[in-house]
């Protein structure tokens, strides 16, 4: 018997008892719908949370130090310096988008009569970085890597005479690099050091605290685009490279990735090169692990309905076998093999599974749309942006269909086996 005939015969059989077929299929649909619905809500919420976290850019970043620099590194290999070669090696790792290394130089700031000595830190803006500076007190953060702008800490602003930090925003600040000549003032003949011309930057914002994540906690730090600082570094490098090497502090390397999911792998590779690293990837993997547990739990709860539906299929099919005993006898008498009969009944339960699976997906989708709609009305009323809370990924569609098909074929095994074993002589015995 060819498959097409098996399907024809099965469809014909299913049409014979429409109501029963419908109810059984509905059972499967509710089962599939409950699994898909549960998982879709969970996945939607998790995706949302995940995306919001990823948007901050934290998760796409690895901070790299020289081995042993922090003291506690295990030193089984000689400590490797962060130099041009190291940067080149890290750049080779797939997934790496950008490597930045912020510099810090000592500066003297002047606003009117008041001056302050502090460290100016270079900032390299990444599309997602602004979120790090959540504590901008006044104004805004630096807008571009080329801007002639400066962000003060509130402490610096106060020292420069702006009691109200808001007054600092929009003011021009004069900046001069500080170079202390070693030995000067003790009567030694110290050569004059060429100093770059002071320049002006516009205050665009005031932060409450220093960005605390990976830097030190100097409350007096101010920020300018890295390009501004590199201009100064270059001035010295062409003239007195020694001096600049002394006064410039290089921050740890910041390795930015295209995709947060690569963090684990890239971090491992950088460690393999002999550097110390820090990332927030462990947070992500913990989060993912928790999500998987929650998803599985929900899937198990959702599966209960499908278990009940499976009992429905078994019941329906056993009934069908009993009702069609004589017909099975006829089919065997005209040459059907046991396998043909089994195939017919398995095809019937498979068809119920496929129809139930499709209907269940539709059910879940409709339910999800309704939930999205309802939830978003509430969310928008609370003043938040509407979100997709319900998401059915393609793999879930595939998995749900495979599951529905698997469960219904498994449910059909016993009835189909019973049908296949029917003795034709007994089935056709007339009374």
């Amino acid at each position, binding site marked *: *018997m*060819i498959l097409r*005939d098996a399907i024809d*015969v099965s469809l*014909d059989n299913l049409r*014979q008892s429409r109501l029963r077929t419908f109810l059984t299929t509905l059972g499967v649909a509710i089962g599939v719908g409950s699994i898909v619905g549960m998982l879709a809500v969970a996945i939607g919420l998790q995706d949302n949370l995940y995306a919001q976290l990823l948007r901050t850019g934290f998760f796409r970043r690895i901070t790299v130090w020289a081995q042993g620099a922090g003291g506690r590194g295990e030193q089984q290999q000689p400590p490797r310096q962060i130099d041009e070669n190291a940067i080149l090696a890290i750049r080779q790792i797939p997934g790496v988008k950008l490597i930045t290394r912020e510099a810090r130089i000592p500066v003297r700031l002047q606003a009117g009569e008041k001056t302050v000595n502090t460290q100016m830190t270079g900032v390299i803006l990444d599309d997602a970085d602004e979120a790090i500076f959540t504590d901008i007190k006044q104004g805004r953060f630096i807008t571009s890597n080329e801007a002639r702008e400066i962000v003060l800490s509130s402490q610096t602003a106060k020292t420069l005479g702006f009691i109200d930090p808001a007054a600092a925003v929009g003011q021009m600040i004069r900046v001069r690099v500080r170079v202390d000549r070693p030995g000067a003032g003790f009567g030694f003949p110290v050569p004059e050091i060429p100093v770059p011309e002071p320049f002006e930057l516009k205050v665009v914002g005031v932060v409450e605290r220093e960005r605390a994540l990976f830097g030190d906690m100097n409350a007096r730090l101010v920020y300018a685009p890295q390009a501004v600082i590199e201009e100064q570094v270059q001035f010295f490098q062409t003239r007195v490279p020694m001096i600049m090497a002394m006064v410039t502090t290089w921050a740890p390397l910041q390795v930015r990735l295209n995709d947060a999911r690569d963090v684990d792998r890239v971090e491992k590779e950088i460690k393999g090169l002999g550097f110390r690293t820090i990332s927030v990837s462990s947070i992500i993997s913990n989060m993912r692990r928790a999500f998987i547990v929650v998803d599985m739990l929900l899937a198990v709860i959702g599966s209960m309905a499908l278990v009940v539906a499976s009992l429905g299929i078994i019941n329906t099919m056993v009934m069908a076998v009993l009702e069609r005993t*004589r*017909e099975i*006898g*006829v*089919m*065997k*008498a*005209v*040459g*059907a*093999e*046991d*396998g*043909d009969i089994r195939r017919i009944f398995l095809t019937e339960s498979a068809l119920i599974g496929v129809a139930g699976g499709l209907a269940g997906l539709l059910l879940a989708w409709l339910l999800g749309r309704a939930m999205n709609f309802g939830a978003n009305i509430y969310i928008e009323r609370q003043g938040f942006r509407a979100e997709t809370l319900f998401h059915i990924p393609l793999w879930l569609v595939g998995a749900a269909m495979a599951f529905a098909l698997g469960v219904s074929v498994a449910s059909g095994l016993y009835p189909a086996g019973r049908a296949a074993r029917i*003795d*034709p*002589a007994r089935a*056709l015995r*007339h009374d």
Partner: protein
Amino acid sequence: MDQLLQTVNLQRHYHMGNSVVRALDGVSLEMEEGEFVALLGTSGSGKSTLLNLVGGMDRPTEGALLFRGRNLAQFTSGEMAAHRRRSVGMVFQSFNLIPRKTALENVMLPMIFAEKPPGERRRRAAELLERVGLAGRAAHRPTELSGGEQQRVAIARALANQPELLLADELTGNLDSRTAAEILALLRGLHRELGKSMLLVTHDERIASVAQRRLYLSDGKIVSEAAAT
């Protein structure tokens, strides 16, 4: 002529509670290709049991049942199904048509299991219905057909896969005498035209008279034999 069927000491026992019923108790017979044989006997004589064994619907308890020299007693279940599908065609007293299928679809059924292409099934089923005189009734369901018509459909179905042997079990048992005569005439015609071997089970001497040879069964044994008069 070639030998089609041979049984040697064929036995079929049933267990009824603690006692054993010997439905067939040592039947030995032979049948030539193209022969028309009637099995006669009263109810319970074992004639239907014998027919079921020849038809591959049941297995003997003991003895040999040779069809074209191959012993059915040793067939696997798949070989038994192939025997039912290709070698024999069965006609029953209660027709055993599938009620919700049309006459044409009922005749097509054996060809589905023989995996004949759909076009050929349809064509051959239509031809067979025409041969049994039901050309205009192909689209009717069994409930819309008279008893005689239903039995004609059943005969057409039995012939679908061109079996070597047609088996009929009390095929006129549910028909009035006029219709029965028509069905018998049809069988005789098929036998004459197609040269098909036929084994007919009946309790009715007049019906058996269409056969070339008559075998009388009683208590599971062949008690006598008569050639056509």
